[in-house]
């Protein structure tokens, strides 16, 4: 039995949609789904077809590949060109264009770039290939940070000397704080990332209703989850109420996962981090704590090319919810999943790629 199937039930979808229609909200609402996983579900299952035309779903900064800045990829490429270095990474990142090249292009010209399903697998590979120095590219949010922290803890404890970490890890609350502090971003409700909150717990996001008055719902990743989250946001709006509610109760505990947070705190410390579309957000990243400096490839001196943005690409505006992907002039013409000009067209969680794949007729949601 697949435990997910009941969460795709069409009858329940219709019931939720009917309930949402009953609210007869008199103004247009913009709800942001922060997480790229939600973006993918919304397009894949055509959820916007179930919603009122007055409710718009806008993608946010929660696709880790998309918010990785060019200079991180440029640095990874520079490291890859050192003798005996292997770059180990999650799959999506390989095709993201850096300032002038992607890791895929470097690999095609002989660079050793390997894709792993997990950081634990990459560590195992490093143990079996002592002649190589393996640099793991750590991208992701709290969800991924705890898994990478656990692997680095294992690496340090067992004294593996040929494994290094290059961090672009980011923390979601800091990004949302920056986003809502910007004057031109208007959002009526937030669909919060269920798997980030699995780690952080609900309290990490309580500042959003408190400081910005924006209702929030932590959502699961099946179509019914996202629909119910929209319904819960509508209810909060109707009741003139703003809080962090939990739709994904089957997985997210109010207090999050303390083991996961403990290993993050043990291995990493907060740092300033560049985000595509936002620039540097203070204290919004995680890097290895100073006592683990030996394993931090930030400390390796390499010559990195000066960062450049891609001409015409509007990933930054897409990630802040300022424009829809189809408003970028390169969308679907110069920029497609086969020839991505920007990061948002690479990952299946990127708003541009999701729209391109699943909504070819009616681009405008």
């Amino acid at each position, binding site marked *: 039995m*697949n*435990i*997910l199937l*009941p*969460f795709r039930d069409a*009858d*329940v979808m219709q*019931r*939720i949609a*009917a*309930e949402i229609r009953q609210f007869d909200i008199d103004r247009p609402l913009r709800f942001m789904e922060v*997480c*790229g*996983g939600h973006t993918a579900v919304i397009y894949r299952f055509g959820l916007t077809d179930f919603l009122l035309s007055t409710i718009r779903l806008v993608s946010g900064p*929660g*696709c*880790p*590949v998309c918010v990785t800045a060019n200079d991180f990829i440029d640095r990874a490429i520079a490291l890859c060109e050192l003798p005996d270095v292997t770059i180990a990474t*999650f799959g*999506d990142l390989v095709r993201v264009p850096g300032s002038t090249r992607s890791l895929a292009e470097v690999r095609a010209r002989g660079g050793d770039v390997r894709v792993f*399903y*997990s*950081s*634990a*697998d990459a560590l195992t590979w490093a143990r079996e290939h002592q002649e190589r120095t393996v640099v793991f590219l750590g*991208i*992701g*949010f709290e*969800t*991924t940070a*705890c*898994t990478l922290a*656990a692997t680095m803890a294992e690496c340090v404890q067992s004294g593996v000397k040929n494994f290094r970490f290059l961090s672009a890890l980011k923390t979601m609350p800091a990004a949302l704080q920056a986003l809502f502090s910007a004057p031109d971003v208007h959002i009526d409700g937030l669909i919060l*990332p269920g*798997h*980030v909150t*699995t*780690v952080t717990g609900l309290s990490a996001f309580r500042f959003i209703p408190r400081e910005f008055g924006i209702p929030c719902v932590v959502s699961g*990743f099946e179509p*019914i989850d996202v629909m*119910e989250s929209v319904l819960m946001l509508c209810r909060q709006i109707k009741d003139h109420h703003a809080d962090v509610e939990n*739709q994904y*109760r*089957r*997985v*997210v*505990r109010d207090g999050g*996962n303390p*083991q*996961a947070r403990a*290993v993050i705190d043990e291995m990493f410390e907060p740092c300033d981090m560049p985000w595509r579309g936002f620039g540097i957000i203070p204290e919004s990243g995680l890097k290895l704590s100073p006592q683990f400096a030996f394993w931090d490839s930030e400390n390796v001196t390499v010559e990195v090319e000066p960062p450049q943005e891609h001409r015409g690409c509007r990933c930054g505006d897409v990630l802040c919810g300022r424009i829809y992907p189809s408003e970028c002039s390169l969308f679907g013409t110069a920029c497609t999943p086969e020839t991505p000009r920007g990061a948002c067209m690479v*990952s299946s*969680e990127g708003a541009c790629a999701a729209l391109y794949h699943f909504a070819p007729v009616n681009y405008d949601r």
Partner: protein
Amino acid sequence: MCLAVPMKLLEHHGQSGVLEIGGARKEVMLTLTPDAKVGDWLIVHAGYSLEILDEQEAESTLTLLRKLGESET
């Protein structure tokens, strides 16, 4: 990339375990969910289990939603 999927725990070997969904099996690290027991559904991300899925809670969410729209009494 942030994708995390539920898988059922079949075998527990200390720090890791064998998990399954739809016939596909995977070796997964269990260090972040030390209370996981054989038979539990776990949420798996990047080779680690992040949380134990509460099946009762899943059922009660669905039960409530299946009743939506039926005349309130």
